[in-house]
C-alpha cells in the first residue's frame, strides 16, 4: 500500500494505492488520525481508486477516521471505490454511513 498526501484548496487528499489489509492498515489509520486530530484538517478526502482490495481491518481504519472527523467537526469523504471496496462497505452496512463520491471533482464539491 502507498499513501501520498496533497492539498487542494481546503481539502487534504489522500491518494491510496495497493491492497489494504491487516499488514498495513495501521499505517493508514495513523496517517488519517494524524491529519484529522493533529493537523486539524477540516476536510479529508480519500482517493481509493488505486485500491483493489480492502479487508475488515482497512474498513476499521476508515471508520476510525470517520469517527475522529465527526469528533473534530471535519468532513470525511471517500471516492473511487472499486467493486471490492464497495462490496465490503455494503456487507458491513457502512456504504451509507460514509460520504461516498464517484470521482475527485464530486468529492471536492461542497
Amino acid at each position: 500500500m502507498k499513501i501520498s498526501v496533497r492539498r487542494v484548496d481546503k481539502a487534504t487528499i489522500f491518494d491510496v494505492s495497493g491492497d489494504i489489509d491487516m499488514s498495513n492498515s495501521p499505517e493508514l489509520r495513523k496517517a488519517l488520525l494524524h491529519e484529522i486530530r493533529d493537523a486539524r484538517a477540516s476536510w479529508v478526502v480519500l482517493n481509493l481508486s488505486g485500491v483493489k482490495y480492502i479487508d475488515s481491518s482497512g474498513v476499521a481504519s476508515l471508520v476510525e477516521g470517520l469517527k475522529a472527523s465527526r469528533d473534530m467537526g471535519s468532513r470525511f469523504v471517500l471516492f473511487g471505490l472499486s467493486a471490492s471496496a464497495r462490496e465490503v462497505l455494503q456487507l458491513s452496512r457502512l456504504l451509507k454511513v460514509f460520504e461516498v463520491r464517484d470521482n475527485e471533482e464530486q468529492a471536492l464539491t461542497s
Partner: protein
Amino acid sequence: MKRPSNRNHDFLLEIKLRSHPRLLCVLRGAMEPLMEVLGFSEEERRSIIRAIDEAVSNIMRHSYNGRLDRPIEVSCRSLRRPSNGKGGRGVEFLLFDHGPAVDPTKLCGRPLDELRCGGLGLHLIRGGMDRVEYKRTANMNQLRLIKYARSSKRRSNP
C-alpha cells in the same frame, strides 16, 4: 502440522504459511487464478478471496494473538453441488491452526448497526460463503468454508 490426510481426488491446492500478515497478499494472489479456472464469476471470486483472507487474518490475530511464526494450513478441493441444488460446482476450503480452541458461540460477529471499529471479519466470511463450519480436531482448529458457483464457466480441468 499433522492432520488427517486428505485422500480426496478433487484435492486442488494446499498452502502452508506462517502467521505473518505480509503473507496474506501471497495467499490472495494464489487464490484468484485458481477460482477463475474453477469457473467462479468475478463477484464470486472476490467473495471467496475476501472470506479466506478474513479467516486467515482472524487466525493470525485471535488464534495466534499476533505471533508471526505459527503455522497455518489452507487446503482447497473442488466439490459437486448436492443433487438437489441448481447451478455449478463448488469449492471447499479447510483452514487449520494450532491455536487454543475457539468458543463456537463467539463466532457470530457483532451487530452491524453500531458504528464500531473491528468485528467485521466474521460478517464478511459468512456473507461471502455458502457454508461456514468450525470444529476442533486433533488439537487443531478447523474452519471449513464452502462456496458454490452460481453459473459454471469452467475453463479447464485442474
